[in-house]
Structures are given as C-alpha cells and as structure tokens.
C-alpha cells in the first residue's frame, strides 16, 4: 500500500481535470495531483483531430491534440503531477482516495477532491434497438478512437443514429476515409449537435439528415447487413408505411452522453436526475464538503472552451477550500421550471453575483428567461431564440434576504 497526502486531487485528466488542476495550483494549492486511467492525459481530445477548439477561449482555433498539448504543457509548468494508467477505485467523505496502477494500491489523502471523470456514451440498449447480437455496431466515440488513434476502419457503409456532435463529426470523418455514409437518423425534429456541425459536417458533403426518423430494426447474422429506418409520428412511434431499408455494414450510435458518476454515487454524492451529474452549489461544491465537480461529469457541455473556463473556477474554489474549510449551510434550491431542462448550480448557499448555466427543453423563437423568487422576478432577460443544443449562461445577483428566506428559486423560459 502506498500512502501519501496532497492538497488537491483531481480525478480525471481530460480538459476539465487539466484546467481545474492548473487553476488550483495558480490559486495557491501546494500539491495538486491528477489521476487518470488512460495511457495519456487529455481525455477524449487526442482523438478529436478536427479543429475549432479554443476559439471562444483564446480566439485561436486548434485541433483536439493541440488543445490538449497546450494544457498538458501548462500543467507541467505549474508542477501539477499527472499519474496516468491510474484508476481510482473509490473515495469517501473524508477525501480518502484509493487508486491502483502498476506500482500498487495507493491511498491518497486529499484536502479537496475535484471530480472530472467525464462521460461515457449511450449504447444500443439505451435506444432499445432489438435484433441480432452481431458485429458492426459502434458508438460514435469508439469508432472515432479506432480511426483517429489506431488507424483502424470500423466499416465501409455506414448509417449513423443520433445527431449528437460526435456523430456529425464522424459522418464527415468517415467520408474523408472513403466510407459511404448513407445518412444520419434523428428522432427529433432538430439536431442535437451544434448547428455549425450540421452545416460543416453534413450539408457541405451532401450527407442526408433524416429528421423525425429512427432505426426500427437491424439485420444480419454475424456482421450487420442492413437496417430499417422509419419516420415517427408526434408520439415518436414509427409509421410503418414510411419504413425503408438501408444496406450497410456499420451502425454508429450517437445517442448522447452519460456523466460518469459511479464513483460519486458510491461516495453518496447527490445526483441530479436530469443532468446525471452531482448537485452542486454556486462554487461547484457537492453535498460532500471539499468535493467539487466540473466538466462533463457535472453536465454535458457544448464546447471544450466553455467547459475549461468553468473548470478553472472549480480549481480555484478547490484551492480556496484547502485553507478555508468552513462548513456551509445547505442554502436554497434553484429549480428548473417551465421551458427549462435543467439548471446548474442546483443549490445556492452564498449571496452575491454568480453565473447560472442552463438548457431550454425545446427550440423556440423570441423568449424570455425569468429567475423567480416566489412571484417576484429577480431577473428577466429577453432571448432572441433558444435551442437545447446551446447552453445558456446568465449572471444573477442573489441577495442575502433571498438566501435567508430558505425558499427555492425557479428558472423559467416563456
């Protein structure tokens, strides 16, 4: 057993973990360690070889590997320790972490923990796609890693189910590699990925996008041979007359992401059923004091840039916590009302200015966003349009009076 103590331990070395770790160091934490299970840091970035990373953050457009390298270099300069091929097995409310790597079992006592475990992809069974148990079905991210990291082609004739960003980017990527992409099938009447990806990855390459469609069955005995797709009615039920068959050997699934919080759940951290991430306060602290959450394990972000910026704040808060471990009140709840899918933070226990991130539940034209305290409007903001694929950020000032009332706040989009 290898024992050690650190100020801040960051679980996960993707963009969120790197950003939080660097920031924790910059804000005074003496020792910061990143624990990452993969063979290299950077999370998903090394396989995202397309560009566009960093534009919002710095104005400079980078590829995923470039963006990761920049942060890894910064982490090195700040003397952040990165332990790769190191898997965290558990942690507890006293910030004791148990991890394993080739040197043995490590017990790490941290003053603060930052959760940055990222996401995993939804699988065939989330969409309940029946049929044979055959090869040729990949999640989009797995296919991306095979092509971009290992130069292995998952297939030649491809149908993509779901219009998440990874699926859209993979449609283009497969086309570049000479595969025939028969189309992207989306059950909703709009894309779940970013509008710019719909244009740059599909429209520019004449790849069909079937809205209001879904895959109704798959067929093939050993390797996939064909899929059937059909239009759905307003209740998402396939209309059998519209069914058509596509001959393909590969089905990529881009059904969305699930925040990885098995570790958090085992440590009794409260999870928001909608975001799939921990319930946090305005400092991104979970219900376990000294345990903070950032990145895609908190909520699925649109872009790495926005995620990194938030993670920086988390790193700072974690560093602050290491020399100021005060117990906080539970505070008040921030609830998602009409037109709102979710809002982060879910809890507020300090007054003052803070940022809220939220998503609408469906696309709309001109709308108004309200933050309500009972019937009273704390904030009212006109939005030219809203789209669930695009995260909304707003600043709000919470007074001590509101906080002391103990009553919940509600966010609405009408």
């Amino acid at each position, binding site marked *: 057993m290898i024992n050690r103590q650190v100020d801040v331990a960051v679980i996960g070395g993707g963009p969120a973990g790197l950003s939080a770790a660097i920031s924790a160091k910059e804000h005074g934490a003496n020792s910061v360690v990143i624990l990452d299970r993969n063979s290299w840091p950077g999370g998903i970035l090394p396989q995202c070889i397309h560009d566009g990373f960093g534009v919002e953050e710095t104005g400079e457009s980078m590829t995923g590997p470039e963006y990761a390298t920049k942060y890894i270099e910064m982490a090195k300069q700040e003397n952040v320790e990165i332990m790769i091929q190191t*898997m965290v097995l558990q942690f507890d409310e006293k910030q004791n972490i148990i991890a*394993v790597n080739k040197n043995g079992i490590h017990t790490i006592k941290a003053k603060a923990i930052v959760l940055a475990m990222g996401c*995993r992809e939804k699988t065939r069974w989330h969409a309940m796609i029946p049929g044979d148990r055959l090869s040729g079905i990949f999640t989009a991210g797995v296919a991306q890693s095979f092509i971009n990291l290992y130069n292995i082609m998952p297939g030649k004739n491809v149908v993509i189910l779901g219009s998440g960003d990874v699926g859209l980017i993979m449609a283009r990527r497969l086309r570049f*590699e000479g595969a025939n992409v028969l189309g992207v099938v989306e059950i909703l009447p709009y894309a779940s990925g970013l509008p710019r990806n719909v244009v740059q990855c599909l429209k520019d390459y004449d790849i069909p996008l079937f809205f209001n469609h879904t895959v109704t069955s798959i067929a093939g005995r050993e390797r996939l041979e064909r899929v059937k797709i059909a239009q759905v009615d307003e209740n998402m039920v396939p209309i059998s007359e519209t069914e058509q068959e596509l001959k393909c050997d590969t089905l990529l699934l881009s059904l969305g992401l699930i925040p990885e919080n098995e570790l958090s759940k085992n440590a009794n951290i409260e999870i928001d059923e909608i975001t799939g991430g921990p319930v946090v306060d305005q400092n991104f602290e979970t219900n376990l004091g000294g345990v903070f959450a950032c990145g895609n394990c908190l909520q699925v972000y649109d872009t790495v840039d926005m995620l990194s910026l938030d993670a920086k704040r988390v790193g700072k808060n974690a560093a602050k916590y290491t020399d100021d471990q005060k117990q906080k009140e539970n505070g008040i709840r921030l609830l998602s009302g009409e037109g709102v899918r979710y809002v982060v933070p879910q809890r507020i226990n300090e007054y003052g200015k803070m940022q809220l991130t939220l998503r609408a539940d469906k696309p709309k034209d001109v709308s108004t966003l309200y933050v309500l305290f009972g019937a009273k409007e704390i904030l009212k903001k006109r939005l030219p349009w809203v789209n669930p694929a695009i995260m909304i950020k707003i600043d709000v000032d919470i007074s001590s009076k509101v906080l002391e009332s103990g009553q919940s706040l509600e966010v609405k989009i009408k």
Partner: protein
Amino acid sequence: MKNFHVAIIGGGVIGSAIAWELSKYKLNVIVFEMGGDVASATSKANSGVIHSGINSPYGSLKARFCVEGNKMFQSFSEKLGFPVKWVGKYVIAKNKDETKELERLKKVGIKNGVAGLEIIDGFEVKNKEPNVSCLEALWVPTAGITLPYEMTIALAENAVINGVNFSLETRVINLKKENDSFSIETNKGTFRNDLLINAAGVNCRDIVSMIEEPEFNVYPCRGEYLVLDKNYHNLINAMIYPVPPKKQGVLGVHVTPTIEGNLLLGPSAEFIDDLADKRTTKKMMKTLMKEAKVILPNLPDNAVINAYSGIRCKLASLEDGGWADFRVEESKQTPAMINLLGIESPGLTAAPAIAKEVAKMISKHIKLETKNNFKTWKFREKRFQEMTQKEQSKMIEKDERWGRIVCRCEHVTEAEVIEALSNSLGAKTLSSVRYRCRAGMGRCKGGFCTQHIVRIMENQFNMDVNDIKLNSPFSNLFHGRTREVEDD
C-alpha cells in the same frame, strides 16, 4: 485423415461436459464446434438456473437427470472453479387456482426426490422478499444459479488440459459410416472416428439427417431475455417464478438474480421457423417487462443494459403442448451414433448427469480405462475485483499488469485479459475475452475497453485487425486499416 475414438459434435454445455467426462479415460476425443468458442449458442443464452427437478413428470429423463445433475453441481463447481449460488426460488401463486398448482408441483417434486419443498403464505414471502406480493408460494431451497458460459468454458478447458481436442469454427458438412467407423467431413478437413456423439443442440436433427432419415422433428422455440443494471440487484434475493403457463412446456417469465449481481427478466416462449433466428424484438422486450412486473411491480423501466435470446430445442410442437422428454439414445439404424435430442431446459442442470450416462453408453463399445495423469484445473481463481486490497497489492507486486485496469466498469486488469486470451481452447474473439474475464460486460458495453483489448490482441498475440471477431467466424469487427492503399 485423423483418427479418433470419439467425436463429439457441438461444444455447448452438453458436448463439453461429455468431453470432460471422457477426458478421464484413455481415449482420443475430438469436439467440433462451429462457433468461435464453446457455449456460443443456447448454452450461454439461458437463465443460468440450476433447477431442482419439480417441473418434470415423475419417471421422465428430464426429472431423473435434473435431480441427479443438481446434486453434482456443488462439487463440480468447486473442482472446476466456476461459481454457483444456492439462492433458492419461489414459485408464486396469485390466486386460489394457482395455489392448487403449487400443491401439484410440490407433489411431483417430492416424488422426483427434491428435498426441502415447502408451501408458505404470502406474509412470510413478504418477510423474505419485501418486493413480492402473492397469496402463497412454493419455496424451493435446492434451486440455484450459475454462470452457464463459465461452466461450459471450465468443462471444455479442463477437457483440453486432459488431452481432448477442440476444433473451433468447424462446421460438420457431411457424415458417412464406413465399415465400423465414421467419416466426418468438415470445413477443416475430414476426420475418422469409431463413436459419434451428436450434441449439436438445436441442430441435432440436421446432424442425424446426414446419416439417416430422422423420425422426429425439432420445433425451435425462442426465449428472449433482458438484463438489468447491477444497481437493482437488491430488489430480490431468491429467484421469483410464476406458476408455469399451462401450454408451451415452459416455465414462464421469471426474475432471476445473476451471479454477477444483475437481474435477468425472461424468457419469452415463441415458436419460430428458423432455428438460427436469435433476434431480440421490440415487441417481446415490452412484453417481458410487462410480464415481469406482474411478479415484481417495482421493476424500473430504464435499467436495461442488454438483451439476448436463446433457442430451445423442442421435440414437441406448440399444438402438441410443447413438452417432450429428453432423448439420450444410440441410433438403432446407425450403431455407435449416440444422439442427444431435445436437450432444452433443464439441460444445463442435467449436463453432468447426462455426461455420466453417455460415458456408460460408450463403455459398451470401448473399454474405458482410467488415466493416471488426469488433472483438475480451476478455471478461475479470484478476480481483481473480488480481491481484498492486500491481495490486489500482492498480485501487482508479482506482476505489474495486475495494476493496469483495462475494463473500467468491471475493474478487469490487463493481466486478466491476457490470461483470457491465452486460454487452452485457443478462442480469441472479443466475446471469448468477455465471457472469461468480464471485460466489456458492464454498463458501458465495451466503450472504454474494446480498444485496449484490440491493442493487446494486436501487440501481444500478433493478431491481424482483419482477423479480430466479435464471436462467430464471420463477425469481423473491422474493415482493415485507414488509408490502406498508398497514394502514388
């Protein structure tokens, strides 16, 4: 042409159990399996239940082999190193009519020699199983669970260690009886042998028809299952069965805990035309959930992490009630051909007893001499996930590959994946890794580990990406490398 004393067609649990039983004797034995690994069909796709023997009529082979097999399981599992758990089962009655059926089952069970049967009232059931409501239940303490694929693999690998040959991805194309021996034509060449064991499961009739006109029919009956996330394992402790439906010769949709901590719902019972049609269907997935909720109303809707189906080999059609007994017999027309026909449930439980019976039948043709150097090898010791931290540290000290986690959901290490790929059967598919060490069996369904396993296959086992398969011979995972053709 290679010569063997005994050829077994089919590497399911029956074929593998026979192979292991025969490996105790001085015999040349070969097993032909058309899949990429043993247990590649119904033997891996069932409830994993060790039945007690209450469901088959007194005097039937099903009852006899089931009760005998059940008693052999504990020692089998300890010797060969596959897990069993004696969780017991409740057959629950929802109304007065059904309670009569419980009485009947109890009587049949006692006659068949099943111990410990007890009818208890709904309150007592509620004490033991807070999520189950019923009027009365039949408590069956001798029913248990196992991992059917681990059992089959353990049997097969133990047989290999004792000299049995397994030929995977080998399809029998034709059979001939010439003088006193059989000539078996396969896609891997022609073999000659003295005795032939037909353990081809649902394909048993096809094998018979290669050599004689079969006087029976096979009615494939598909059973679909749903697997639920481990988070819900504490909904039940024992297996929960309904009173069996009157027709079809099946036990009805039940809820079973698995050794690994998931819940299993199923199976459905659907007579189909094509015995290779192992599809799962949306309709049945919904039906299973609905029927399982009748016995366990608290089942969550969104906890399914997998679905699969297996094909029952039935010798009676739906019109004839779907029930027929096992047939374990030597062909009258073709002496020295032993046919195992209609081995459906409780075939898994019966396997050890059937293997003994087949050995006895073989001894009438060939004198069975015990080997002196027969070895027993434990299929698996503790997995990394099952070890204490101290044990884990010790393993890593010995070999650092025990410290590299390849499968994040099930905490499977590189050492375990390499061990799985080094199996004595030579099975090297992604599924053969999954079924041996559980890498890829968790909730992310291989999202993280597949790429690492593929790298290990390439780098440490010199496999070409084009030869990497999911399970069966044509289930290739990839289409070569990117930019395989170089630009001029």
